[in-house]
């Protein structure tokens, strides 16, 4: 696993994309620190981090796009498959390398509160809140990196992986605002879930190429949904908007920006990371079973 980790880190550090991500993070970090702390004299570092979450929109696709897609394109994935290593270790090695690159500019960002506190004559930045938020910012990055890695594992074209990842990041970023447009009517929730189930069936069909199975499962799920709707009609009010809201990964960072170290959000971020790493391993394994 360390060999995979080191190679991935090496390729990231020899490429340009990691540096672009780092440069963006540090450039905008610097600008926000300038504006918030130096010009306006604010003492809340979490505001800087909150504003910086949008860098992930561009940064995560840049970081993760090549991780698996490039290997498939260059046919080096054959080597990975023939190595005496489990796919879990390979994916984990890659992921940890990406997380390392993702975290590098954050370490530098972490110097700002100390620096400002050392220089300031007026109000100091509360360090606990600042570093709590920075930790949360890092966990958010971990979750997003796993999503990016998964998207890269689905693609053979690096550009396509970056594009798809960016779209997903954008969706996740604006998910809460989008969820706001969903009305609370029970019928709307039902429609929402029905469409999602159909989409799930479609993906299942694409993955398994087993038409009858995917169709049957979709029909069963849709029927179950209908039964639930008939039985617990009132529960459906606003449910879809709630569920969609739960998926908004970026919004989980909000509580950190209020200066709260929210353990539930940390667990949420780690669960998202775990889920997408698992899906990445499955995607890679599935290719072995190509039919």
């Amino acid at each position, binding site marked *: 696993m360390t060999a995979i980790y080191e190679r991935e880190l090496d390729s990231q550090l020899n490429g340009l994309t990691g540096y672009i991500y780092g440069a963006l993070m540090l450039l905008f970090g610097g600008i926000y620190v300038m504006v918030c702390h130096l010009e306006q004299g604010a003492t809340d570092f979490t505001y800087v981090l909150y504003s910086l979450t949008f860098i992930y929109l561009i940064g995560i696709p840049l970081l993760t796009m090549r991780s698996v897609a490039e290997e498939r394109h260059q046919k080096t994935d054959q*080597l990975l498959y023939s190595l005496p290593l489990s796919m879990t270790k390979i994916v984990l090695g890659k992921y940890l390398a990406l997380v390392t690159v993702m975290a590098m500019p954050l370490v530098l960002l972490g110097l700002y509160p100390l620096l400002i506190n050392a220089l300031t004559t007026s109000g100091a930045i509360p360090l606990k809140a600042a570093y709590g938020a920075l930790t949360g910012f890092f966990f958010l990055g971990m979750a997003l990196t796993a999503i990016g890695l998964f998207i890269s594992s689905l693609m053979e074209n690096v550009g396509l992986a970056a594009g798809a990842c960016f779209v997903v990041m954008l969706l996740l970023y604006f998910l809460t605002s989008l969820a706001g447009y969903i009305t609370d009517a029970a019928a709307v929730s039902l429609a929402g879930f029905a469409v999602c189930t159909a989409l799930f069936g479609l993906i299942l069909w694409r993955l398994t190429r087993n038409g009858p199975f995917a169709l049957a499962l979709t029909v069963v799920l849709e029927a179950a949904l209908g039964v639930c709707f008939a039985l617990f009609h009132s529960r459906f009010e606003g449910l879809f908007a709630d569920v969609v809201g739960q998926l908004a990964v970026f919004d989980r960072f909000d509580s950190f920006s209020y200066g709260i170290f929210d353990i539930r959000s940390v667990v949420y971020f780690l669960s998202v990371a775990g889920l997408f790493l698992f899906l990445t391993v499955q995607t890679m394994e599935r290719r072995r079973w190509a039919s």
Partner: protein
Amino acid sequence: MIEVRHLTKRYGRYTAVEDLSFTVQSGAVYGFLGPNGAGKTTTMNILTGCLAATEGQVTIDGHDIFDEPTKAKGLIGYLPEQPPLYMGMTVREYLTFVARAKGVKTRQLDGQLERAMAVTGTADVADRLIRNLSKGYRQRVGIAQALLADPAVIILDEPTVGLDPLQIVEIRQLIRSLGREHTVILSSHILSEVQAVCDRILLIHKGRLVADGTAEELERRFAGKVTYRLTVKADAVHARQALEAVEGVLDVQTKTDGGRTRIELTASDAGPAMDERLSFALSDGRIPVLRMEREQASLEDVFLALTAEGSQERPMEKKSGRKGGKKP
């Protein structure tokens, strides 16, 4: 060393490999021979654990490739059809990575690297970027990669494709030398290559194993007949009378040319006894023999005969599930 039992691989409705069974003994060079699309790459990908079989079992030194993949893969060095090289690394960096990923201990790392590079002749390009190497050198680096961690079995998929004639000769010599210490399996659609390099041949056609043995065995088993070409100092009728009486002679064609007769004779038995019988028959008939040679059915004939039925183009061999990939 390797046991393959009832291996079948289907891609949807297309069957790439069907009920393939064979055993590979250690310490020999095996050649996987077959026309394009015969299922060679698919079989090799399954042997190395890169691809899962639809049915059947593969064990490497007793370790099932699906149940104990780590142990089984640790015994194999694999060079896929397209060498899996990271273009942005130098040869040394790349080989170090592969060795460490294969679990070579730090203490043995340098020794392993030096050996692999010495055997494949890549030591003088060790610090060059793989991107800048010629195809022949890339192939060598690919083989060096397969040699790391000293695997018992080395599997090479079409190792000489795309190389120039000199490089082909060098790579073949390299493979022969590898065969002294490792079990080597290579695939090829070039008959002369397999004949030149391999101790045993597995002839595969349409995903099935059609023949298995040494080159001589195959020639004998599938030939059955031998052709003699003779030139005798006698008239055609005389010669024909003498030869047709010999046991095992199937057909005699004659052509008179001045005082001599050229004969093309087909006989059923390939043994040396036939040579003797023919020459005795001719000397008994007091026919002077000017020239006599035996022409064994070549492996090429065997190859063509076995793969002739259905020689029309088959759909292109589908590789390990890559979609839309460039055909190398």
